[in-house]
């Protein structure tokens, strides 16, 4: 699969078609990186970025989506921290995971602004979380919370996995991999809390 590279001159229709194909593949899997950001406005974003940063590649919309995803995770962990459903140990864990997601969002935001891009609008509330993983409003027990968190982290791993096929900047690929690996470690701790196999697959692609 070729990644989309927008260079000087007209964007190739083949590249746009490939991008659309990838996007549709994501949609088929029931998940889009950052939800509506890619789904609704991918092509216009690609065009505007081509015009603003000719030759800069297509990393900016991917970064913006990843930032949205991390911010959504921060919101989700905030909701479960305030839910009163968690034991002291899991409360401590949820706080640590939220801090990690915030650190990811901050690092990606710095990377995006370094590239000359602007951070996306901040997501708000459970509705924003629903666009990535549904069910946060339905959690009623600690077990529900842990299962929801596993879904959220799995979705994040899937998003970074897909992003690695498209990102072109070396530094972004490396930041992305170190974040994806962190989400994998979150999954280990959460799966253990749910008494599930902590490392079920040799290739952690976020396929569930």
């Amino acid at each position, binding site marked *: *699969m*070729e990644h989309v590279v927008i260079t000087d001159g007209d964007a190739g229709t083949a590249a746009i078609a490939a991008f659309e194909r990838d996007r549709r593949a994501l949609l088929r899997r029931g998940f889009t990186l950052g939800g509506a950001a890619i789904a609704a406005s991918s092509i216009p974003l690609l065009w505007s970025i081509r015009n603003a940063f000719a030759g800069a590649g297509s990393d900016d919309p991917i970064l913006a989506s990843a930032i949205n995803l991390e911010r959504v995770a921060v919101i989700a962990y905030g909701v479960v921290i305030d839910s009163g459903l968690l034991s002291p140990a899991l409360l401590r864990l949820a706080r*640590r995971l939220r801090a990690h997601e915030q650190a990811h969002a901050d690092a990606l935001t710095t990377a995006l602004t370094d590239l000359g891009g602007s951070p996306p609008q901040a997501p708000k509330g459970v509705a924003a979380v629903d666009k990535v993983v549904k069910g946060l409003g339905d959690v009623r027990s600690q077990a529900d919370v842990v299962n929801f968190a596993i879904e959220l982290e799995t979705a994040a791993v899937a998003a970074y996995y897909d992003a690695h096929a498209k990102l*072109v900047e070396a530094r972004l690929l490396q930041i992305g991999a170190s974040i994806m690996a*962190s989400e*994998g470690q979150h999954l*280990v701790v959460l799966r253990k809390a749910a008494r599930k196999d902590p490392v079920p*697959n*040799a290739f952690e*692609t976020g396929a569930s």
Partner: protein
Amino acid sequence: MDIDSFLRDPLSRRRFFHMSGVSVAGGSAVFLAACGSDDPTSRVPTGPDESDQADVEILNGALDLELMAVAAYKRAAALMTGDVLEIGKTFLAQEQEHADGLSAAIKDAGGMPNRAKSSYEFPELRSQTDALKFAVDLENTAIAAYIDALPKLSQGDLRATAAAIVTNEAEHAAVLLDALGRDPLPGAFVTGSAA
């Protein structure tokens, strides 16, 4: 040399990993020989053959590492019992899956996969704790090597697969740290450590 001295001594570690086909020099390019440039974004292969050849060299570097990890987990498993032994066996099988996947990718790119060395000189492991500590070091070295190599791969699907392997190695590290009674989540960014 016992494991604690080995882990404290950068020169021994570097020599060991170098002899196993792995060299992570000061956090810079681990499989740099494949590229000829520190800046992967500036590397524009002139044709598919050239990029395939560069990919093959990078993938073979990763394969050397996985084959060494398979041998290491076999050695470590001899010191493990109970739940820890189950962990060791699972991770051994997963490292073998990585090696098989890399070998297939190398063949797809028209290359010849490297083979395992007939023997590896591991540091002296005397206990299950030694085995776990050594395994954590191996996983961290692998994580650093993959993160370093990842941007140099020319194909998107290879980069995605490398990221999936890094994430699995990070999961291994978390489980092993937990088994040692240490924090399984040492940081928000998992970068491993250079040998």
